[in-house]
Structure formats: C-alpha cells, structure tokens
C-alpha cells in the first residue's frame, strides 16, 4: 500500500524546507548563519535538499569570535569545501585587537561585543535582508515565544511584545530598508529531533559531540575543557574525563557533559534518557536573570 502519511521527522523536514525556500524566493539578499554546530549542520542539509539539484542560492555566514575550538575551524573549512558552499566569515577584529575577552570583562559584555555586535555588523556590511538561523524553540524559555520569521528593526532589536502574528505557513517577510528578518526554520525541532535527523541522514558533525577522554577541570559544578593558555583558578587540577559536548560555543564558555556516547546512535539513546537540558552547559545563558531574552532584544540570535 502507498504510504500517504508523514512521520513527525518527515513533517518537520518538509516544514523547514518550505521555510528555507520561502526565504530564497521572497528576499533579495538572504544569508544563512552557520555556527559550525549540529543545528547548523542540519539546517545546511535541509537547504541542500531544498534546492537540489541546484546549489544553495545564498551564502553561509560564520560570525567568528576567534575563540572557537580548533576542531570547529577544521570541520567548518572541510565541510563547506566539500559541499561547495559559499562561506563568508566575519570577525570583529577591532574588538578582538582591543582585547575583548570573557575573563576580564565578563561573559555578558564579551558576548554583546563579539557575538551580538559582530552579527549586526556582518549583516549590515553584507546588506542582508534575511538571516536564517538554527535556533530552536525548545532551547530556552524566551525562544519558545519566537516566531519563525522574527522581525528586527534597523538596530537589529527584537520586540517580544509587538511581534507580527504568524498564521499557517503564511510568513510575512515584508520589511523596510535597513530592517531585517531572522528566520528560524528549525523552530519546531527539539534536540532529539536534530540527532534523529543527523542519524537518518548521516550528516557529518564536529567530532567534539562524541565522547572521548579529554582533559577537563570542574568549575561551579560544570566540566570545562582545558586548553592552551587557559587561566586556571586556584585549586583547579586538570583531570581526564570521558565526556562529550552537547553544544559548541566559545572555548572559555562551553562546558561538557560526562558521557560515553561515541556514535550518533549512542547519542540518540542517551538523549532519550537524558535529564538535563542542553544549554545547561552554556555559561552565557545563566549569567543574568532572563539573560537570553535580554540578549535577543539587543540583537542576539
């Protein structure tokens, strides 16, 4: 018998492809934000499928803080070369040269400059009117209220109290000059869905997601990777821990979880029984009350 019914994963895939195509059709200069992480990998795969046998008709943009893990840079360059993507990289070199870092100025300020401000600069420089991002509603409370098409004013700001109603799959992408729409094709995906899809589609991801024995220190109950030039706090002693990363950010601010999942299948199995949300390992979400909402209002993803 013919199958005329979609599983949840297939339904999510169809919805995301619809959104990505809609952006390509309606905007003049769209761009896809590529953060090297698993969600970006999935989003890029969906874009490939959306336009196959053609190429992805917009560039990928990596907003680089200069503080990503070496494995991430390596992966990024290889992945983008292999799929023939048009990768653009933006780094707020001026700020980096001035020594912006999370240790001296705190994570809030560091993020505001190296991520939020850098992103706004990059979008403005590129003249992009739409930016596709891999954020999901299940990640964090204020993201749960985000639209698929999220309107940003000419300063890149989000106004959660005055969002455009969004009905059916009829997205309103109309903007004035200088304004921008952030588009989230993975809005309805969960972390588990992302891994299920990576499994099904055999999508390559940065090896840091897989468990390995790594040198770590325990700080405020979190597992922090030890790397060259790191400032250890008094009493901290590096130890080897079997662990993996659930999310990938900047090395000073990304924690790992104890895990023995060495393959995508094992990660999925772990996910099904997991007890903590993924962003628990991201220091930046916890640095102030309603911190994600605050960042988003200012222009963060």
């Amino acid at each position, binding site marked *: 018998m*013919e199958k*005329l*019914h*979609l*599983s*949840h*994963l*297939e*339904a*999510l*895939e*169809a*919805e995301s*492809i*619809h959104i990505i*195509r*809609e952006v390509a*059709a309606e905007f003049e200069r769209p761009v896809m934000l590529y953060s090297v992480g698993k969600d970006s990998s999935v989003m890029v795969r969906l874009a*490939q*499928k*959306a*336009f*196959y*046998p053609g*190429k992805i008709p917009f560039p990928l943009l990596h907003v680089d803080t200069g503080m990503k893990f070496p494995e991430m840079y390596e992966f990024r360059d290889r992945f983008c070369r292999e799929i023939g993507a048009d990768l653009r990289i933006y780094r707020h070199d001026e700020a980096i040269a001035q020594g912006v870092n999370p240790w001296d100025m705190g994570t809030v300020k560091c993020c505001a400059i190296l991520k939020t401000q850098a992103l706004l600069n990059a979008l403005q420089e590129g003249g992009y009117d739409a930016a596709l991002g891999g954020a999901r*509603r*299940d990640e964090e*409370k*204020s993201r*749960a*209220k985000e639209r698929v098409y999220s309107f940003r004013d000419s300063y890149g700001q989000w106004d*959660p*109290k005055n969002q*455009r*109603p969004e*009905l*059916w*799959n*009829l997205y*309103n992408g*109309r*903007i*004035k000059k200088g304004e921008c729409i952030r588009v989230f094709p993975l*809005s*309805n995906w*969960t972390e588990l*869905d992302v891994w*299920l899809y990576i499994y099904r589609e055999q999508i390559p991801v940065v090896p840091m997601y897989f468990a390995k024995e790594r040198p770590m220190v325990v700080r405020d109950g979190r597992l922090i990777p030890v790397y060259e030039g790191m400032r250890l706090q008094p009493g901290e002693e590096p130890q080897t821990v079997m662990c993996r990363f659930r999310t990938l950010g900047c090395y000073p601010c990304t924690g790992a979880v104890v895990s023995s999942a060495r393959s995508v*299948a094992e990660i*999925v*199995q772990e996910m*099904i029984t*997991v*007890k903590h*949300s993924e962003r*628990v390992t991201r220091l930046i979400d916890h640095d102030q*009350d*309603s911190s994600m*909402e*605050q960042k988003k209002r200012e222009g963060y993803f």
Partner: protein
Amino acid sequence: MAVSIEQLIEQVSESELLRFVTAGSVDDGKSTLIGRLLHDAKAIYEDHLASLDRDSRKAGREYIDFALLTDGLKAEREQGITIDVAYRHFATPRRRFIIADTPGHEQYTRNMATGASTADLALILVDARNGVTTQSRRHAFIASLLGIPRIVVAVNKMDLVGWSQNAFEAIRHEFGQFCTKLRIADLEFIPISALKGDNVVHRSENMPWYQGPPLLSYLETVHIASDQNLIDFRFPVQYVLRPSSDFRGYAGTIASGVVRLGEEVVVLPSRRLTTITRIQKGFEEVDYAFAPQSVTLCVADDLDISRGDMIAHPANVPWIARDIEAMLIWLHEEPMRLDRYYLVKHTTSVVRGRFTDVMYRIDPDTLHRQEAKALALNEMGRVCMHLFRPIMCDEYARNRSTGAFIVIDPITNFTVGCGMIIDRSHPYTGSTAAQRVALHQEQITVEDRSLVLGQKPVTIWMTGLSGSGKSTIAYAVEKRLLADGRACFVLDGDKVRQGLNKDLGFSPSDRSENIRRVAEVARLMNEAGLVVLVSLISPFRKDRENARSIIGGDRFLEIFVHAPIETCEERDPKGLYAKARQGLIPEFTGVSSPYEEPDQPDLKLDTTQLSVDACVEAIIGLLREKRILE
C-alpha cells in the same frame, strides 16, 4: 526482548506529530496544566525543574508553580500573565507534541488565532467553579473558525468542587449546547485537577465516575491522520529551480492531495496542460508525493511557470477568483479601512486587494450577527474583498492551505488580518462542481448551476393588496438571503412597470400580460440559478395559475400577504388609495377592481398580526421545510 538502538531510533523517528493549541482564561490554570503535563510525562529537564523551584520560591510560592515554567518572557513573569504564544515540545513513546500555549485574555484573540491556525486539536480549559464563561465560548468559536476539527474541554480544579460529577455534567451540557452551533467534528470533556495531577497523565482515584481516558492518553491516541486533504491536488509553485540548462523544476509544498509521475496536470491561471516527468524529494526521485511534502516537480512542456502559479489535476481545479468572501479576524489596533488597499498573502502569492464590504460582525459570545462598517482589533466577521489579481483558492473548510490568507498593511508591513475563505458567493462550490463546470461547458443544466450555487432556484410569488406589505417583506427576505450568501433578486410591480412593462396599463388583459412577462423573467432567473422574489398584486387566480405553469409547479411558492382593505387604505404608503377613491386611478384593486384571494397558498402572512421580521422568519422556515435552503 531487548530492543536494539536502531530499532529504538526507528520507533522514535516514526512517531506521529500532534500540534495542539491551549486556551483558557487567566485563572483557569492553563500554565499549571501544561507544566503538569510536561512534568508527569517526564518532559522537563532537571535543570529547568531546579530553576523552576528557585523561581517558585522567589515568587513566594510554597509549591512548584508550573506557571512559571511556561511564562517565558520577563514581563510576563513579573505580571503573572502570558502575553504571547509560546511553543512547547514534548514526546511520549507514541507521539511527538507541539503545544501552542496562547494567552486567554480577551484582547489577545489574535494570539489564539495564531496558535490555532496550525493546530490539529484545541484544548480549552474551564474552571469547574466558574463554569462556561464568555471566554470559553470565544475560544471554542475561534477554534471552529480556524477549522480545528476537535476540541477537548478540560474541566479543571475539580478538587475545588469536591470532585462533583454534577458540576462536571452541568459544564458538559452547557458547553455542548453552545458547540452544536459550531462546526466541530469531535468534542471531548475530561474532568481534571492540574494542580493535583488527577486525570492529566494518571487516572484519577477521586473521580471513579469518569470512565474516559486521562488527558494524555486521549492526546496520544486520538486519530488525526485523516485530517489531511489527500483528494484535491494543489501545488502552489514556490520557487523555480533552474540550476542548469537541462533542469527546470518547480519547487513547492504540496498543499493538498497526491501527485504521481506521468500524470496530466494543469497549470493555473494559464490553464496549460502538461505532464509530470519527475518528482524530486530532497536528493531522491520518487514516483508519487503527497501533502504536506516539500518537493520539486518537473513537467514535459516548456511552459512559463512562476512563483504564485498553481499546479492541479485538470479534472479537479480550485477557483480562480478576484472577488472572495471570507470570515476575517482583524489583528491590529488600527481598524480595517474600506478606502485603501492591503496586501493579501495567499499560498505563495501576494496580491493587492481592497475590502468591498463588511457583511456582518459576529459576536463570538452569542454568535449573533451585528451590522458593522469595519472590523476593529480582535473582531471577527464576514467580509468581501476585491483582489487586483486573481488567486487560486478553495473553501477553507475543505482546504486549510488554499483557503487561508493573511492581510498585510502595505505601509507598516504589519500582519493586520487573517481570513478563511468561504464558498457561498462563488460560482462554484468545491471541486466536484468546479470539475463539472470545467468539463461540460457545452451543456450546463439547471442542476449544474444549482450544484455550483449551492441553492435550489425557486420563485416566491407574493400576492396581496396594495399596501399589504409585499414589497417590504420581499426586500427584507432578499437582504436576509443575501447575507446568507444566497443569490436572489426581487421583481416588484413598480420596478417592472418602469421598464420592461411600461407599455402596459391596468386593464384585466394588461394585468395578465404584466404577470405573464414577470413570470417568464422569473423563470429565466430561476434557470440562471437565482432565488426570485416576486411582489405583485396579481389579483386574479387565473393569472397566478398561469404564472405557476410558466415557472413550473415545483419552483413556484405562492404566498398570500394579507391585510384587510381598511388597513391597507389606512397605510396607503404611496397615496394610491386616496387617488383611487377620488376616481383618479381606474380599476384599482380593492376599490374599483376585485381581488381574488388564493385558495391554498403555501403560506399566508397576516401583516396586521406579524412584524416584518416574523414574516421573514416564516418564509425562511418555509424554504427550509421545502429543502430549498439547507
């Protein structure tokens, strides 16, 4: 038996997706219910639970306040209310759920509509202590307006009414009564206590009288697979793919129906026929595809097809319409205006259009229709729109994808309205009728027209003395029928005598000819599918019988509009009786010419006893009884 990782993954990947919207008034305990659902279904991470516990204590609660979990925005948590739609996710081994959690305040109808637009099911919370409120009714109405086929009413806080079955049954009865007026296929009631957890995930021990499933079991098992329209193939072209000279494909999401390789299709609005030569789904080529898959179609002929066009089967096509009628919800603070244009986004096309009429506003609490010049924020009503370019659409009740549109303000770019297309004013109703029209244009019968207009043609012949009230009633019936979307027309004596019959006087033979001509016109109008209201004194029995034979007995209804001659003379709206009495008008019925009352009229209306409205009701009743109106 041990399940391998692969099998487990397979099982989880294949689970079905259910999207539901929740609605409830401020204190019905909606957030608590969602929190409870997530908590008991073990869908809350420990770190979220820990921060919830912290937040609860910070807010001075002695228990874990699940509401704090769902009220995501800072402003909301401070005010203790929910101001925007929030989407939550959880999964059980059977299903993956997306909850659109919408605020219950009256002013946020737009958020409920937003959440409802993509929902398979609506969960409406009712506080057992307060019973069915204005807001509960409003939520049910919006749910039905947005075409959600099933509603679950969770009667919450049962613990505060002593787990009383009577309290539950009373709410069930009242809500059920209200919902009979709405288009809801499936209505379920579950007594719960979100705070205590009764009948949310686990069966309640406090309510042994309730035999149905707990809420989560219901959500896990309710059948939704048949909601998808798999009959009418509609493919709005979203994006044209032309990566090289040897490939041209049309990318899009199948709005409804199924498409197969090798099938003949028609491209609209150009009406060019072609054949499907390739169906690309991601990296693979497939033999068939169905809604709501996103695919790319290739066709045999080199046609000019672009975004906004639609591909369908030639025997089953949507309407191609410039004038549409729709139920509309206004979503913006600045009210709708009829003197300017808006943008309408429908499937993949954006067209300019204007509101030409607000037929009525509907009061969601009573479902009464009110006269309105425009719709303001959160108001709903039936409107007519004229579009500057045609769209390919279907009735929303039949097709949620091709029957929906949003309205955008071209200056502010804000989404100001959403519409659900209705079929009544259209020359076609649904695909069957459209198909017949498309295929049999050479031989259109009255039945064909009747089918496409959704009404049986009939002539309602009103006879009676001058001043008895015939025309007043005829025009009132016409107004009512038009408001219902029926095509109808009044032929009254004065109107026909000004033009068509201006060569005729009032002698018995001229009166006969007058009636014969009116009957012939009524017959033609009936054949065109119209309901005709004739308002003529038509004093002689034999003339009326002649009219009946011209029009056809099965399409002729005789209505005797009765008032005694004294009353008519007293009313004398046109001053004719006075003139007749002065001898200025010869052969005036009732004064100088006889009136023969009908022996067995289909309806006799005594206008000295009945108001105009009552007469209209009586006629509508008759039409229903005769199955002329459904």
